[in-house]
């Protein structure tokens, strides 16, 4: 068996006296589609923050592509092939949508050395990405002109612009209509088809069940289940966590 793309072992994170994550073990294979679910406050976003370097974890280790990520800054991890969308959209407010996407192209893609883009190729790439998420006609608008839903799409497009090996889609579908959810799922499938490993963090079960090959469940900072989606949702502990006794 080949080395997993992402290897998390014994990961722990505390905020003062509160244990946000405890002894998380999780392996993700290259090209896999993983769903990560859990009730609010169960530590899903904290886990993403620890993997992407926004937060420093206190215990355990994270390895990506066989190399340890410990001690690397967030931008080094992004350049290494990790990308994430923020659950609450954090666009660059004074830059147009196209310029928002230009940042990861200039600083993540071009910093990798090979396959860098320049001049009009960057503009073309920004346009393509925006049309993938359906924002092409707003390329020169500012983020403040967007609806919350459009901002989520921009978040996703910006993460995609970094051309990651592993993409965290952190609740990009919240608030979207049925048809829009289908669009985003199709988009994530397309990305996955191009070889991008996708970890979907989502409350919309229809999307998670349709997309994921595997499902991991976090409850109160612990991983309580990990396996085939159909089995996991029938797991007694998972049902209890979601529905109560």
């Amino acid at each position, binding site marked *: 068996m080949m080395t997993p793309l992402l290897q998390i072992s014994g990961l722990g994170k505390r905020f003062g006296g509160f244990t946000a994550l405890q002894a998380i073990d999780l392996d993700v294979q290259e090209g896999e589609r993983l769903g990560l679910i859990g009730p609010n406050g169960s530590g899903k976003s904290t886990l993403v923050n620890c993997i*992407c*370097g*926004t937060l420093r974890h206190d215990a355990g280790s994270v390895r990506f592509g066989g190399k340890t990520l410990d001690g690397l*800054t*967030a*931008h080094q991890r*992004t*350049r290494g092939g990790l*990308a*994430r969308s*923020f659950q609450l959209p*954090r*666009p*660059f*407010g*004074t*830059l147009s949508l196209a*310029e928002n996407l*230009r*940042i*990861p192209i*200039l*600083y*993540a*893609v*071009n*910093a990798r050395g090979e396959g860098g883009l320049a001049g009009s190729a960057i503009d073309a790439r920004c346009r393509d990405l925006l049309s993938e998420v359906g924002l092409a006609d707003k390329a020169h608008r500012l983020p403040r002109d967007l609806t919350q839903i459009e901002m989520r799409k921009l978040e996703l497009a*910006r993460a995609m*612009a*970094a051309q990651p090996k592993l993409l965290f889609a952190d609740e990009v579908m919240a608030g979207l209509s049925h048809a829009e959810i289908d669009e985003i799922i199709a988009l994530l499938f397309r990305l996955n088809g191009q070889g991008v490993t996708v970890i979907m963090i989502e409350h919309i079960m229809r999307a998670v069940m349709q997309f994921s090959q595997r499902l991991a469940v976090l409850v109160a900072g612990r991983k309580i289940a990990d396996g085939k989606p159909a089995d996991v949702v029938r797991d007694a502990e998972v049902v209890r966590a979601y529905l109560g006794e």
Partner: protein
Amino acid sequence: MGSVPFVLALVCVAAALFAVGRWLNISYAFFAAYVVVQYIVLGTAWNILGGYTGYVNFGITAFFALGAYSSVVLYKLVPSLPLPIMMVVGGIVAGLVGLGTGYLTLRLRGVFFSIATLALAVVVQTLITNWDFVGGARGAYVLRPRVAPLIGGDYIQYLFLLMLGLCVIVLTVARSIEHSALGYGFAAIRDDEGAAEASGVPTLRLKLIATVLSGGFMGMAGAPLPYYVTYLDPASGFSLNYAVNAIAMPLIGGTSSWLGPVVGAVLVGGLQEYIRVTISSAVNVLVAGVLLVVFVVLAPEGIVGLFRRRRR
């Protein structure tokens, strides 16, 4: 406009200004214009850190006076050293201090960074005041040559020419930053530092580049000061006016483009000079303050921002 035509246009404007000054041949005009151009440089330098990356630096006088006092030191050691070299040295000294300050303070965000820079100004002023070699609290005299080197005429003309040259350089750098990857990185930091990191922007490195450029240019702007005033003491070198004006001018003109500090400096600097002559030398400080408040409330994007919005 491409970079080369821009520089040529800038040089032409500067040359025309200087030619008009030579033709008028009024010393006062040079003294007044020097101040305005100096503020264009200071405002633009402040804007590289404050406007582009969003880190508000209150310690302008520290960098400015470091430039001025490094000229005093050089004057005492090697009186014959040409002023352009002193400006380069002043820029290097202030740039290095900018680098050090950046390392120590850039992990602070927002207002905490600003307070730290304010503290820097106090620390540097205290050190200079207690350094006997540069005159301490008594101040230092610098005798300037009667005749300007190279160009002849009054020495103030030479000072003005140097400041014009520096202004061309600083504006060129500021404008090329705006249109480069560096400028996009700065803007990303200003808008959301965490999201910038997540997009691959090496935020700390970029912020250090900004503090070095910003501090260095402030130092270069301060280096000719001893020759301009001929008597420099800490109270005048560290005058609050420099800090207030260098912040007010970009904010009034607009922080999003290189043109903002130019518009702000010409407008406010010109107005101050006019009021200094016609009304009183104390009222002129009020101008920057009042205009700053008016603009922050009514037009936070400055004059350039007002025009941009209309065009959209």
